[in-house]
């Protein structure tokens, strides 16, 4: 498993060295604009949904960029932007502990209850 990938795929044209493996810490210059997450409401009445991310110096610029990058074909009627560093995410390693307990509580679902046929529409 030590071979480098020399295979060229579409969008992957190989390289002399494995650049991704070169350094483990992302090299970010001080001047790199902060990262923002973009959420878009596609139409009135629906929730905002994560659309992607972008770089911007402040909220106003993030908003303008979000419009240009994510809503060129009226994909949205409302945009939220939030700087990525403010997003706290659950850890995938904790997924079992967090979400498994719900699995054995089948009585939380309506299908758990058997009712006589005479009871309609419940």
């Amino acid at each position, binding site marked *: 498993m030590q071979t480098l990938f020399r295979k060229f*795929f579409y969008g992957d044209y190989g390289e002399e060295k494995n650049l991704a493996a070169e350094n483990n810490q992302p090299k970010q210059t001080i001047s790199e604009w902060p990262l923002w997450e973009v959420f878009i409401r596609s139409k009135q009445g629906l929730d905002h949904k994560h659309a992607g991310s972008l770089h911007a110096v402040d909220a106003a610029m993030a908003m303008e960029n979000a419009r240009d990058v994510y809503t060129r074909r009226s994909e949205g009627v409302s945009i939220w932007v939030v700087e990525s560093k403010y997003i706290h995410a659950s850890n995938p390693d904790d997924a079992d502990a967090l979400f498994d307990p719900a699995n054995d509580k089948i009585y939380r679902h309506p299908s758990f209850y058997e009712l006589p046929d005479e009871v309609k529409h419940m």
Partner: protein
Amino acid sequence: MGTNFEEQFQQKIDQETKIEPKDWMPQKYRHTLIRQISQHAHSEIVGMLPEGNWITRAPSLKRKSILLAKIQDEAGHGLYLYAAAETLGISRDEMYEQLHEGKAKYSSIFNYPTLTWADIGAIGWLVDGAAIMNQVPLCRSSFGPYARAMVRVCKEESFHQRQGFESLLVLSKGTEEQKRMCQDAINRWWWPCLMMFGPPDDESPNTLQSMQWKIKRFSNDELRQKFVNMIAEQVKVLHMTLPDPDLKWNEEKNQYDFGKINWEEFKQVLQGNGPCNKERMDARRKAWEDGAWVREAANAYAAKKSIAS
């Protein structure tokens, strides 16, 4: 890392469970994806240059608006993809640096010149057509952010191919000179487009790994064949021909046979010796350097505002 993690990882892939950025993944999976996604992003960005060459000379306001919209889409594609790559732990600046220093590659196709207006039509029809062929299966790539970015990209691509074909259709019904121009553009773009799919499968020893990881779903040759079958039919509508004397329908195989691809040319272009490699890289570097003051000014403005508030 223990094999146990790798086994679980492969199990997820086999069950078509998407891998998300914070999930455990083999280093090699991460590196392969960073390379593929960032180079895909570079291709979208560099790909704006040959088309940008014709914005000011588009034959009508309509064609100019269409071309501008298409090129803006390509910028968007680059941005979706850079963002997807960033989720794997590489910074945007680092990717730019790799491109500008000539360390990272991009699609060989964008190192060819756009000599006439017909080239813009040919790019839309053939280059974007080949891109779609590759990108549609990538929408099911095992890495979530890549797959989602590709879904967005693919939604926008079909307009790119259609506008290109339609523009050639107009030329193909025009004057003798316009017809010649149309045929000439097809002649020049055809072979480089076939090269876009990458080297033949028998020269690709690592196809297996990327297929096993479901980063890639079809082999280079499979996709290339599909593309030839499609274009060989469409070119008839234009009453034009493809520059390949060996191109003919194979009843038995139910597909088109086609001639030998000049892989030496492909290698040369990838290594930097194509007709426009230097021009493209110079343009990218210049854009980056000329933009430095804008990046700094924006930072300074944001800093000043945050102190004030």
